[in-house]
């Protein structure tokens, strides 16, 4: 074989090694992604969906909506702060309980997203209330949910003939 042919052969071989390694790494990554995804996806529900879907207690998810006005109260027991408030989407409401200090931008009448699970008595026990950086910022999911529910309310309202 000529030197050139030899070189081309070696190049082909190298390319095959490279392809096999790449495929192996990619396969590993896909496997990891699939196995990790199952446990770390958090579905997002608004209060109406919680009422409709009958979510099992203990299943982790994200709840989003507005903090209902005049619903917030905090109690301190033994140095631990227990916060109670209601999250609404203008249609249904869910009672939320959260132990710990709330983020700075938590306000009544504003959007909130919390992570946690329902307990047996229909109360959402939040393990985390997500912080945001901008007092005007509303998570996209909450906007979508409010729009959806808002539309629903408007059609309902026109039926009832009330403004």
């Amino acid at each position, binding site marked *: 074989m000529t030197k050139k042919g030899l*070189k081309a052969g*070696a*190049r082909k071989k*190298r390319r095959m*090694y*490279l392809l096999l*390694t*790449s495929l192996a*790494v*990619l396969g*590993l*990554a896909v496997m*990891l*992604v699939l196995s*990790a*995804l199952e*446990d*770390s*996806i*958090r*579905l*997002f*529900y608004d209060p109406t969906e919680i009422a409709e879907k009958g979510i099992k207690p203990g299943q982790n998810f*994200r709840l989003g909506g507005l903090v209902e006005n005049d619903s*917030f109260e*905090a*109690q*301190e027991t033994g*140095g*631990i*702060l227990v*916060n109670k408030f209601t999250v609404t989407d203008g249609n249904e409401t869910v009672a939320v309980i959260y132990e*710990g*200090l*709330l983020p*700075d*931008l938590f306000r009544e009448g504003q959007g909130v*997203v919390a992570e946690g699970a329902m307990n047996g008595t229909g109360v959402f026990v939040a393990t985390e209330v*997500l*912080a*945001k*950086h*901008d*007092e*005007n*910022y509303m*998570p*996209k*999911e909450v906007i*979508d949910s409010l729009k959806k529910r808002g539309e629903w309310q408007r059609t309902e309202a026109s039926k009832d003939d009330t403004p």
Partner: protein
Amino acid sequence: MIAELGHYMLVLALGLAVLQAVFPMIGAARQDGRMMMIGQPAAYGQFIFSLAAFASLTYSYIVSDFSVAVVARNSHSLKPMLYKISGVWGNHEGSLLFWVVFLALFGALVAYFGRGLPKSLRARVLSVQAMVGVGFYLFMLITSNPFERLPNVPFEGNGLNPLLQDPGLAFHPPFLYLGYVGLSVVFSFAIAALIEGRVDPAWARWVRPWTLLAWVFLTTGIVLGSWWAYYELGWGGWWGWDPVENASFMPWLVATALLHSAIVVEKRDTLKSWTILLAIIAFSFSLLGTFIVRSGIITSVHAFATDPERGLFILMFLALVIGGSFLLFALRSDKLQAGGLFAPISRESGLVINNLFLSVAAAVVLYGTLHPLLSDALFGVKSSVGAPFFNLVFGFLMIPLVMIMGLGVHFKWKRADIKGISQRLKAITGLSLLAALMTLYVTYGGDIMPVVWMGIGIWLLLSMLQELSSRVKLGQVPLKDSLSRLKRQPRSSWGMSLGHLGFAIGLIGIVATSSWSLEQQKVMRIGESMTIGDYTLRLDDVIAVAGPNYSAVRGIITVTGKDGASFMAHPESRTYISSPMTTTEGAVETTMAGDLFIVIGDAQTSGRWGVRVYYKPMQVWLWIGSTIMVIGGLFSLSDRRYRIGSPQGKKAAGKKNTRSAAHAI
């Protein structure tokens, strides 16, 4: 008047960008020297005009001209001067203007420092750079004009989001943008090379400093952002795998891969198509990052005001740039001749595997970031992908990457002697196993992965030190000779050693702080105490203080360590006058062993204060390690062979047409 002038300057800059995009490209195709020459003055002019536009906007901020819409929305007359100025880029319109100024600056720098480049290559690079610029000028002028006036001039501005009023954040976006935009130069070089149909070691030598520069800026920008989040947000978090954070991390991963593959092109004249592809992907990720941050299409905690319509424009631009460049790549990449051969175990292979893992890691981060978007669009399921996903997948992919990093630096080009290397690494491998066992003992009963990672981190650190000491023949020749060898090391080897050592130090910090952090919170009355780890905190008093544009409550806290020594901590909770917003100013006590981080807040019940305390072991290692990485990058950048006007550079330019000449250098 000044604002209108700024607007006019922006339009002029657009005009010059169009000239710069069109004529040099045609000139290069026709080998018309005069047409190619247009690129240079156009690049300088474009930079001057965009800078003038930027200066006009900055002026409007400084004098608090609230008739300009963005100033009224984002500034306040009582703001300290630093934040009036940083407010210029603390919003969508201003940050875009910032983008194009940097884009034009880099174009001008290519025009100036690229005098040694082959004429047609330089013309094409400048043209591509200007094409990207045209997209951004149009975007700005059509959808987000920073010089828009308000019909009714408000008496006072809305104020900058108080969270942004911080030195860390004043400088975080500029560095990040310099990084993003720096990658545009690399992209322009890649597209120009595809059009030329030629990539050689000389090309790599021109591209590598730009990649390094972009990488240094990107690293600095990401670290500043992370540091800001750590001390300003008051949650002790420095990385959350939030879409916006990922948006800056993906280009970083690809830029890091590119940094390594460009070495192979430069030294061994191979991996060319791959390197071109990486350059295109790196800049695509920069654009994607801008899209994710600006469109608000993915929920992020870092999202400030967003606008989906603008997102659509960027998406179209993104499709055009990425689609166009991939098409060009598909059509032209076969023109690039494959170069030198190497054995499966060699430095080249090590770098290929490095590239493989870095790009797969970037792909995984991309998937995790876009998954919520895909599942919503395809199945109507709203979801989010949390940190556990990224920690698990990314963490697993990092193990082989770090291993190959520790091994690869010992590999020789072409063919490496694996037996000899494993023989040499026996001692440090033993030491690392010992360190892992000690970690296991100290943290017994905890997770096993942090122990594994600690062992790997220490092994990497030792391996890098061993590489450096073998290079200066420490122990084989008298110490004095070793020292003088150390002094004679080229800057680029210093860059490599520092970059990798910094990475190892940062890695150890990351492992410690994310595995063994402590957190305590308590609602306290004055005089009460709480404990965390080895520390006891007593809330002595809470006083009211007034700042320039905020009022605050400040906790007076005595912290006592295990050894009885005590110090005072003064965390604050600030409420800003211009917007009803509270921010925390945590008190941080930093030692090499760990940070004690104290945050105070209103407990919403009278006479009591919410105190949150974190203990973050070895947190400072992360900041030290990343600083060393950046210094390493700067060292590499100052290496002789990249120096402007060095004889080598001129020689390369003089013999531009012969590939063998490029080889000889």
